Structure formats: structure tokens, C-alpha cells
């Protein structure tokens, strides 16, 4: 072809959007047709030339991807046929990948739910959690004294603060009394979180005034489980500790970072509170434009003022502050989850190496077939693409099976997760998790198909035809050795990690508890404290049950405790413990 003009060079550039095979077949013809059409349209005028370029651009945007899809369709058809012809290979590869992708999807669903998902509060990026600390007493992350909190509220210029105190209450309405975790908090709390009620209203400033009508809010879960999700709950009266409260609203499940289900406004009597009595938890909302550092400097300055003003109670007391995100999802939790994700990532890599090895072995047995296809005119890049397509098809099939495994295993995993893992119970195979799995599938497919593709591209037609299916090439053998070495290395990493974990667990089991913990049995009868305290006579049936239990079980002794000394799980806040484990009379027996 004669030297190309600028327009022809430009058109050839546009033709790059088409698949290589299409260009091999038609590029020359298309350039000729373009040259003649351009000459014709130039004779008509600039409008016709512009229309032509518009058509060519549309071709590149619409038709060229269509041609790619066409080639992909053919490759997929070929790959399906090829896999159907090798069912044992296909099953092994798909099952291996399904386990790898399934494990990664399941663990990522937890990582996403716990560590990656944004907090469900409008103001999450400005929320901070505040504690008091005393370095000289080696106390940090400690509850806040209410008089200090009141001083902060009056003096802080960079943020608003709201306190809460947790506990548990016995709720009496028309049905059976129930024990629920409760929280009393400052009325600003909801405004700071930007929470909106499902029904009714949240608290108003007038609700915390002394003498105001006693009102309460319930969480969505309590509304459904105890009040039948009826709309008439607003205005319903419930009795708590002998005092009637009117329910004024229902708040959504994810609207507050607390596990309580029953909320009342916090009524503070400053005269009754002592500055050295640390009983409250505090959350802060940075005012717009204020940085975290500015807010920390501000509250540190206020703490120093209070230390100077009230040395008897505040000497040595300072401030601990973190973002609400770091409070809810602590850094060690995030680190542990990412380590776990890394471990299942290693499992996936081993699965990839296994499938790559299988594909290389298969490529060796198909060498003659490939050589024949090349000899009768199949382009080398087409064969490479078909191997890659086969790999991607395996990855998609394995990935789909893996996602099904994840759908089945994630609900099971939620049951097994530690109870103190924040937001772990919200793990689901959501859209971002599926996107992650899709990415894993594609990367996996390319990762294990690239070795056999390289082996295909590097093979020599004549040698392959002569050798037939006698074995694999040197390059393929080297690839398989590299893959085997990588598998051993990854398996060693996992083995060492698992070994260290077992060792840590053994050490943990040998830690001294400080009391004799063997030989005790615990029975939780779920009897609430409130009525028992009020009517001591009701203890009598328990005493009788204890005696019967002792006789039947052959115990040497038994007694009642109000709270267990050791809780399952660890909690950063003492008050959080109480919300998670409603106070009940418990019977301990030996």
C-alpha cells in the first residue's frame, strides 16, 4: 500500500479498537474503502467528511466492542466444549477454586462488615469518643465523672458532648415483665448522631427537666420482639422500677452504637453527683471546620483547668480520646481480621498454583492439538487467548460455586464469631463483597492461566508436531517447578502461622486466673433482681430448687450470686458489660 496520509493513519489508529483477528482479515480492505469514501465525500463538501468521521468514531465505540464480544463468544464456546471433554480436570479445578474463592468471600464479608463499611451515622466523620485517664494510677479508657462532663459541656468551644449511663431495667407493660439493657443519655445524643426515629420522635430538651413527664424510646428489635411491631406503641405506658414511662418513639436498629434496647433521657442532679465518681460514657461531635487535633487540645485545656480548680478529685486526671470508628472497630480487631484475610489469601494462591499446575499438565497433553491448529492457520495470539478464556471460564465457574459456598457459610460463621466482634453479626454477602469476589475470580483466572498461556505462546509448531504428546516443554516444566516451589512456600507460611496460633492458645490456657475455677457449675435461671429485692419471699422457691438440685446432682454446696465474676468476652467499657449481660440472679453450685 502507498504511503498513508494523515487521515488514513488516524483511521488505522481507530481500527486498533477491533480485535487482532478482525484486523488481520479486513484492515487493508477497510483502509482502501475509507480512502475512496473520503475522496468521494471530500468532493461533496466538509459536511459529508464530518459525517464520515462521525460514522467511523461510532464504529470504534459501538461496532469494535461487538467484534470483541463475538470473538469472546467463540472462545467461550470452544472453552465449554473443551472442558466438557475433560470432566475430571474441570471438576477438580472448579472445586479447588470454589474452596479458595468461597473462603475468601466469606472472610471478606466479615472484614467488610466490621472494618471497611462506613459507620451508619450521618456525622460519623466528626464523632469522637471521650474517656478520662490517670497516668499516675495507670488508668486509661476510664468512665467520666458527671460533674466533669457538665464542665466540659459548658466550656468546650470546639465540640458538643453528650453523656450516657448504661444498665438494665425490668420492663412491665401488658405482657410478662422482661429484663432489657437500657441507657439513659443526654438529649443531644440523637441529634449528634443524626438519627431519625422509625416511629414517633426522639427526645426533646424539655424531657430531661426535673418534674417533666417520664418518656422513653425503644429500639426496633424490642419493638418487634415485645410490642409486636404495632404502630400504637407511641403513647404506650411501661413501668420501670415502679415509675410509669410513656414511649414516645422507636429508633432504628443501627442508629446508635450501643446494644441497649430501652432509652430514657438522662436527668442529672449536680448536687447529688461527686466529681471523683466516674460513672458515665461520653461521645463528642466536632463542630464544622474543627479538626480532631484542635478538639483534643481544647478538651485537654479544659481538663487542666478542672485539675487546677478541683485538685482533690481531679489531680492527675486527663483525657483519652479516639474517633468513634476506632472505638467501635479497634485497631487490633482490624489488624487481626486483615491477618486472617491474608491467611485465606494464601489458601487462594495455593489453589491458583494447583489449578495452574493442572492446566500446564493439560497443556502438555494438548500440545499436538495446538500445533495442528497453528499449522492450519490459527493465529498464535488466538490460541493464547483461548487458553486465557478457558482459565477465566474456570475462574468464573469456580467463583460462582465459591460465592454459593459463601452464601451458605456466612450465616454459619456469624454464629461462630466472637460475641465481642463489633458489627460481626452484620456480615452478609453484599454487593461490595460480590464485587470483591468478582475481582478475585478475574485475578485468579488470569493468575493461573498465564503460565499455560505462556507455554502455548512459546511452543514451536514443528517440534510440537514431531514430539506429539510425549511430554511438556522445558519452559512448561520450569513453570511447574516454580509453581510447586511457590505452593510449598505458601503452605509453610500457613503452617507456621497455624503453629504459632496453637502455641498461643496453649499459653493462654495456662494463664493463672487468680481463683480456683474448676469443679464449679453455673446455672442461669433468668430471675430478675428487681422483684426479688422488693419481695424477699420470692427467694423461697429458689432456695427449695437449690436444695433439690443439690440432692439430685450430688453437689457439695450451692448458692446464689447476682453476677458472675468472669464474663465471656472482653469489653472495653465496664458499662458495656452490663448492657450485654442483663443482671440476673444466678445460681452457682458446687
Amino acid at each position: 500500500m502507498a504511503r498513508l496520509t494523515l487521515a488514513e493513519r488516524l483511521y488505522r489508529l481507530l481500527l486498533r479498537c477491533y480485535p487482532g483477528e478482525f484486523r488481520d482479515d479486513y484492515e487493508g480492505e477497510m483502509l482502501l474503502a475509507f480512502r475512496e469514501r473520503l475522496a468521494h465525500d471530500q468532493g461533496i463538501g466538509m459536511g459529508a467528511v464530518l459525517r464520515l468521521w462521525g460514522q467511523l468514531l461510532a464504529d470504534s465505540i459501538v461496532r469494535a466492542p461487538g467484534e470483541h464480544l463475538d470473538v469472546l463468544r467463540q472462545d467461550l464456546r470452544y472453552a465449554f466444549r473443551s472442558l466438557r471433554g475433560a470432566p475430571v480436570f474441570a471438576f477438580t479445578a472448579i472445586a479447588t477454586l470454589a474452596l479458595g474463592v468461597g473462603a475468601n468471600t466469606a472472610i471478606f464479608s466479615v472484614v467488610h462488615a466490621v472494618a471497611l463499611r462506613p459507620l451508619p451515622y450521618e456525622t460519623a466523620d466528626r464523632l469522637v469518643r471521650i474517656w478520662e485517664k490517670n497516668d499516675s494510677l495507670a488508668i486509661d479508657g476510664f468512665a467520666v465523672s458527671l460533674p466533669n462532663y457538665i464542665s466540659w459541656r459548658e466550656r468546650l468551644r470546639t465540640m458538643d458532648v453528650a453523656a450516657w449511663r448504661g444498665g438494665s431495667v425490668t420492663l412491665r407493660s401488658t405482657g410478662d415483665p422482661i429484663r432489657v439493657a437500657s441507657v439513659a443519655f443526654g438529649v443531644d445524643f440523637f441529634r449528634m448522631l443524626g438519627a431519625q426515629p422509625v416511629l414517633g420522635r426522639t427526645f426533646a430538651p424539655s424531657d430531661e427537666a426535673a418534674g417533666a413527664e417520664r418518656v422513653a424510646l425503644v429500639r426496633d428489635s424490642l419493638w418487634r420482639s415485645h410490642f409486636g411491631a404495632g404502630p400504637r406503641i407511641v403513647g404506650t405506658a411501661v413501668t420501670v422500677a415502679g415509675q410509669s414511662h410513656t414511649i414516645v418513639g422507636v429508633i432504628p436498629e443501627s442508629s446508635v452504637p450501643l446494644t441497649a434496647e430501652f432509652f430514657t433521657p438522662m436527668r442529672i442532679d449536680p448536687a447529688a453527683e461527686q466529681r471523683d465518681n466516674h460513672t458515665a460514657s461520653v461521645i463528642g461531635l466536632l463542630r464544622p471546620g474543627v479538626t480532631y487535633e484542635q478538639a483534643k487540645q481544647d478538651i485537654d485545656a479544659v481538663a487542666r483547668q478542672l485539675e487546677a480548680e478541683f485538685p482533690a478529685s481531679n489531680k492527675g486526671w486527663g483525657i483519652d480520646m479516639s474517633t468513634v470508628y476506632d472505638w467501635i472497630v479497634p485497631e487490633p480487631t482490624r489488624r487481626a481480621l486483615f491477618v486472617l484475610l491474608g491467611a485465606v489469601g494464601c489458601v487462594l494462591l495455593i489453589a491458583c498454583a494447583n489449578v495452574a499446575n493442572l492446566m500446564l499438565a493439560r497443556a502438555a497433553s494438548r500440545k499436538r492439538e495446538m500445533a495442528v491448529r497453528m499449522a492450519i492457520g490459527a493465529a498464535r495470539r488466538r490460541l493464547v487467548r483461548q487458553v486465557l478464556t478457558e482459565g477465566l471460564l474456570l475462574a468464573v465457574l469456580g467463583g460462582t460455586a465459591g460465592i454459593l459456598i459463601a452464601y451458605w457459610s456466612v450465616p454459619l460463621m456469624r454464629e461462630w464469631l466472637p460475641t465481642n466482634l463489633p458489627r460481626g453479626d452484620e456480615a452478609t454477602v453484599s454487593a461490595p463483597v460480590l464485587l470483591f469476589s468478582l475481582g478475585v475470580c478475574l485475578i485468579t483466572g488470569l493468575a493461573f492461566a498465564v503460565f499455560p498461556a505462556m507455554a502455548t505462546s512459546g511452543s514451536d509448531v514443528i517440534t510440537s508436531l514431531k514430539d506429539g504428546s510425549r511430554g511438556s516443554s522445558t519452559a512448561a516444566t520450569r513453570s511447574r517447578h516454580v509453581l510447586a516451589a511457590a505452593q510449598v512456600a505458601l503452605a509453610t507460611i500457613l503452617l507456621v502461622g497455624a503453629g504459632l496460633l496453637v502455641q498461643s492458645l496453649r499459653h493462654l490456657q495456662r494463664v493463672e486466673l487468680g481463683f480456683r475455677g474448676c469443679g464449679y457449675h453455673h446455672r442461669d435461671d433468668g430471675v430478675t433482681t428487681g422483684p426479688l429485692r422488693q419481695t424477699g419471699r420470692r427467694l423461697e422457691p429458689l432456695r427449695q430448687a437449690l436444695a433439690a438440685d443439690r440432692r439430685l446432682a450430688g453437689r457439695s454446696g450451692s448458692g446464689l450470686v447476682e453476677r458472675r465474676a468472669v464474663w465471656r468476652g472482653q469489653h472495653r467499657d465496664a458499662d458495656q458489660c452490663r448492657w450485654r449481660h442483663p443482671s440476673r440472679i444466678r445460681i452457682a453450685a458446687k
Partner: protein
Amino acid sequence: MTRDIDAEIHALLPLAPAFFQILIALGDGERHGYSVMQDVADRTGGRVRMSPGTLYGSIKRMLAEGLIEELTTGAAGADERRRYYRTTKFGRRVAAAEAARISSLLLQAHESGLVPRPS
């Protein structure tokens, strides 16, 4: 195994407009790509101007469907740089079936009074 030609023809109907235009252009003999483009433009008074992408994308599919074939030896006076195409017997039958389908539609349009009959 015998081919069910009628079923194959019906599976292709309605024919893509570009396919039908190309079959019409090749109806009176073999042509190269640009000649097909030119013929379509001439017959339609310039209203239909195929782009090279549409033309060669269609040619590729029509070759795969067996509607047209490429000449292996050049036609008399042919430009050696070009590739020439002609309709196959199957392509002619498909074109006839498409023409009948369109005629039937046109007849129905006449009968319903939607389109006036030619005087």
C-alpha cells in the same frame, strides 16, 4: 445428516437491513467492499451510507452464515488489491424470503389502508 434449509432461512429472518442491502448489491454479480458501499448509496439516493465498520462487520458475519462467499480467483479485470464477494445460493434464498416477508407486510399495510396503494 440433512440440513433443514427452510428452518435455517427462517432463523435468519427478519434479516438485518445491512445484510439485505449487501445481498441486493451483490444480486447482479460479484463486487468488492467499496463497490458495495457505493451501490447501496446510489440505490438509496445517498440516504444509506454504510461505514467501513458496518460493511466489513456484516461481511464477516454473512460469510460465517454462508449468505455470501469470497471469490478465490479474481474476477475479470479485477483489482488485485481487493477482495471480491458474491451471493451464495443459500444467500439468494434468504434474500427472496426476506423480500417476500417485506412484500407481505406491505400488502397488509395496503389492505388496512395504512399505506395507499400505488396508482
